[in-house]
């Protein structure tokens, strides 16, 4: 079979390109909201953890956070996804995309938390002490002095985490979500030709990741430029 014929069969016949397009939309939707949940959760956990490390308060919350980090980072995301779908929401009729958003969001939150905590802890303690001696309380010091500096340090790492998450969502097919990877699989199961569906799925991921990497690079340069006064 020549290439044109193969392209026609895999993408044009029966509007098969729609599997890829719809799949891409689902993948982007899951990634976007999972990233948002991950950021919210991650910042919360990071603030609790760093507050505990700096002040020794919030012992119990810190304990729960530690369990959360250990469990989420210690188990594969596919298993977490299946548990969320078949166990936690076992008897609930819930949108699968929502299940995926929650599972990937909670997963990402653990990694974001460690990245952000690393950022907060990397700021010299002198900054913190300076803030306190100027009469700012703990919260004000964190908000106005520590966090702005920490954020700048961790932004590139956070962008990277988003990129990793985008690729991780490819296991969503396990709970029969028609995401981009599954879209390619569906075409493959109908046309029996592995080459084009797989290569095009890979290319689509690659283009998105390259775009995001490019934007991250730009962001990093902008942040660096700000340093050279």
């Amino acid at each position, binding site marked *: 079979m020549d290439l044109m014929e193969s392209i026609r069969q895999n993408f044009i016949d029966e509007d098969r390109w729609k599997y890829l397009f719809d799949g891409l939309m689902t993948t982007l939707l899951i990634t976007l909201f999972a990233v948002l949940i991950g950021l919210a959760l991650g910042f919360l956990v990071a603030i609790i953890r760093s507050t505990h490390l700096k002040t020794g308060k919030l012992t119990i919350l810190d304990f729960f956070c530690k369990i959360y980090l250990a469990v989420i980072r210690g188990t594969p995301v596919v298993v977490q996804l299946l548990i969320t779908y*078949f166990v936690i*929401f*076992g*008897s609930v009729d819930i949108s699968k995309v929502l299940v995926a958003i929650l599972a990937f969001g909670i997963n990402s939150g653990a990694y974001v938390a460690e990245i952000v905590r690393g950022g907060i802890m990397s700021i010299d303690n002198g900054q913190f002490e300076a803030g306190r001696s100027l009469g700012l309380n703990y919260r004000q010091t964190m908000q106005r002095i520590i966090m702005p500096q920490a954020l700048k340090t961790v932004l590139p790492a956070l962008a990277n985490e988003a990129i990793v998450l985008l690729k991780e969502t490819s296991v969503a097919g396990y*709970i029969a979500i*028609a995401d981009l990877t599954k879209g390619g699989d569906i075409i493959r199961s*109908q046309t029996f030709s592995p080459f084009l569906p797989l290569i095009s799925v890979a290319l689509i991921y690659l283009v998105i990741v390259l775009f995001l990497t490019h934007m991250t690079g730009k962001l990093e340069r902008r942040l660096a430029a700000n340093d050279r006064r």
Partner: protein
Amino acid sequence: MKKITLLLLITVLCAVALTACGSKKENTVHSIDDLKGKKIGVQIGTTGDTLAGDIENAVVEKYNKYADAVQALKQGKIDAVIVDSDTANVFVNKNKDVTLLSEGFADEEYAIAMHLDNQDLQMEINGALAELKSDGTLKKIKDFYDGDKSEDSDMKPYTKNENADRSKGTLVMATNSEFPPYEYVEGGKIVGFDVDMMNAVCDKLGYELKIEDMQFDSIIAAIQSGKADVGVAGMSVTADRERNVRFSDSYTVTHLVVMVRK
């Protein structure tokens, strides 16, 4: 201390909210016509997948394996599962809360798939299948896997002939071990009707059988790319598949059925 109490309260509330939703969903599918507009679970790449795609307004959920589709059916996430009759019976026997509709779909024939160019292998396998059919071996294997294996002690699976000639080398069989009674995992080994039948075929032809377990929708690709010599996975002969692989004579006849909640 306030914060901790609040946190505990929220956790408990969430847990209660989740379990409170645990009511069973009523079955709404009583005939094949009822499938219109329903959520139908299938295994990706199977004939059930193709068939469900033609049902009006139906949402087809393509799972990687039947077991997951049945699980989702039991939990009320989907309304029905379209699955091959023999496999459906195994699932129904193991799960008390699912049942089958009495009406089914048209008959389908299972056959062994191989590369389009491999006419010689097709001739060999057809010869061996004909022998196994005429000497009753195939029937015996079928009876064993259809029967209740726990009670009948006189029924045994096919035992590989250890002294058989293996001079022709290895025959790689691609299968998907999620399809009882044709192929499934028991005691860490892939067993089932297809496995026993292929062992019998290899004993006759002088091959050493090697089983490669993979996703069902990858089997045809594995044959086309030469990673497997034959695909034996309860695979129905369809016009689409025949354009991509060569099929042997059929070795069994089944049909698709609809599984629903009780």
